[in-house]
């Protein structure tokens, strides 16, 4: 595998014999993975769009440009019209601006769901792995139950059950969807952290910490968890596209985000009705969704390769 290695790197390595830390080593591998890098750049762009997109959008997502609509014979404007880069929908709303607003929804799904997953999955997984015994058994049995649940259907049921509560009304129904998706997704994280803790529990540095009387909580939080951060990061990154997809699917079938706000999924659902006469209404949101899903998948794959201990230290 050393064939493609530039000579300069070898010389540089000789000049500074100091060992490369695992983190920098991983970063270096990630930088060499072009697909992952492109994914990372797009992810950053998407996050920026989500943060400031609605503020810089040429139109508000619910404003109807009725004059332009009338001028066009009451037909939605095609893409690349003046003032409407991606055209408008049948109500004269600017598709580009609605996509920007949808980006905010998709990215907040990405962030909030993974936060829920981390907040629930990591402590439970760590406790199960560390204490073992009955707690561990309980977790594993519970995971079996969650795994047997058809997850999308469980999310739908949760969504409908709490639709009318405070939780269901918060953020146009979004918060509920986040929580519901997170509730089905955390078990994978818990299992992962449990496995990590189990394998690190017997390591020498843990034994050393125990020998000098460090308390359980501190051993797990200071010694074990930082050492299992790699797989956790990978799982979070790869969990994001499935969360985005779940939200889009829910919005597509009409559960989830409530009109007039629209996520990419509900934009696609809307476009479906007019797919024969106005294909741009489907094409743009579908492209946006595809780009987001691909970028996160590439980044996650790249991170996994970069952080995989089997490859560490090799070129």
């Amino acid at each position, binding site marked *: 595998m050393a064939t493609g290695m530039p000579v300069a790197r070898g010389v540089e390595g000789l000049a500074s014999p100091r060992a490369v830390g695992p983190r920098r080593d991983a970063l270096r591998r990630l930088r060499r993975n072009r697909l992952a890098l492109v994914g990372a750049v797009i992810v950053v762009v998407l996050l920026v769009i989500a943060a400031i997109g609605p503020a810089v959008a040429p139109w508000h997502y619910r404003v109807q440009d009725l004059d332009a609509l009338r001028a066009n014979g009451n037909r939605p404007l095609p893409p690349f019209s003046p003032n409407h880069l991606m055209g408008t929908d049948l109500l004269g709303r600017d598709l580009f601006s609605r996509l920007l607003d949808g980006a905010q929804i998709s990215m907040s799904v990405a962030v909030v769901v993974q936060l829920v997953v981390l907040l629930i999955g990591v402590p439970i997984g760590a406790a199960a792995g560390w204490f073992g015994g009955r707690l561990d058994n309980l977790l594993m049995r519970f995971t079996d*139950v969650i795994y047997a*649940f058809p997850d999308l259907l469980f999310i*739908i049921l949760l969504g409908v059950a709490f639709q009318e509560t405070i939780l269901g009304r918060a953020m146009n129904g979004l918060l509920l969807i986040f929580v519901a998706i997170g509730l089905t997704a955390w078990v994978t994280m818990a299992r992962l952290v449990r496995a990590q803790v189990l394998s690190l529990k017997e390591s020498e540095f843990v034994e050393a910490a125990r020998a000098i009387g460090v308390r359980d909580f501190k051993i797990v939080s200071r010694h074990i968890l930082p050492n299992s951060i790699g797989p956790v990061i990978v799982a979070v990154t790869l969990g994001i596209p499935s969360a985005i997809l779940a939200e889009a699917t829910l919005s*597509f079938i009409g559960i989830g985000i409530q009109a007039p706000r629209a996520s990419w999924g509900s934009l696609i659902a809307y476009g479906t009705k007019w797919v024969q006469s106005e294909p741009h209404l489907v094409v743009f949101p579908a492209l946006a969704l*595809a780009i987001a*899903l691909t970028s996160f998948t590439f980044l996650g794959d790249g991170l996994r390769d970069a952080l995989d201990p089997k490859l560490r230290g090799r070129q």
Partner: protein
Amino acid sequence: MRGYLVRRVLWIVPVLVAVSLITFLLMHAVPGGPWDREKPLPASVVRRLNAEYGLDDPIHVQYLRWAGALIQGDLGPSYRYRDRSVNDIVGDGIGTTVQLGVMAFLLAVLLGIPLGMIAALRQNKLPDYAATLVSIVGIATPSFVLALLLVVVFSVTLRWLPTHGWEGPASWVLPTVALAGYPMAQIARYTRASMLEVTRTDYVRTAYSKGLRERAVVLVHMTRNSLIPVVTVLGPLLAYLVTGSFIVELIFSVPGIGRFYVNGINERDYGLIMAMTMLYAVVIAVLNVVVDVLYAYIDPRIRYS
């Protein structure tokens, strides 16, 4: 092995009980009831219907009655389709859903594995890039988008295939492809990755140095070992095919059972919701066991005890 299998199969029972309990409680926590209509029914009618269907009993009584009937193979009444039992509804549609799922699964495996193998054997060459592109598109395109795309191209533009329905092989093509896209892409990805790993092993090098032809090395030495990690993802992918088919069924108006889940929830049809959840849960639980057993069968290094 047999002891392990028995334990795994027996364990399905408590899992199903838990799934049914959670669903039952959640379902009854959903506001509204099966008798809600655009025009509300008179209170007296609702009361009579509730009494007739036992919906005014305490919830644990209702659950036990439902579970008791289930053990005898009776899924109970449908609250929406009042002239039909849930057994009838499920019986009518399940064949179609299974057929759709099996066809999509076969398509995904038969295309995905060769695609991944070709990509790995021609790593960083044109076939690899082509195969990778296909699998990227497959992963990044949700089934509902793929379905739409297929309809636009093959039904609306080319007019080769019907836009919806389920009458004869021509109408099976688009739903099957739409459902198979994502699993096929995943299978191709995993096959490629594990083939690449196997390529670097000593026994493959030995096989080549013995002077074996590439075809022999690939088919005899590499395929079986490289498929082990692929088998582990077949379980989740099968589960995806089972539970994900409802979207495809909705889009193509396939008369399967998938559409009844969303309808069941929206219409508070308790009997249908429970039946669908249990059906899916049984399929997923059984699939997981099957995949584990298959795993041990392909990889003799794995022993369950």
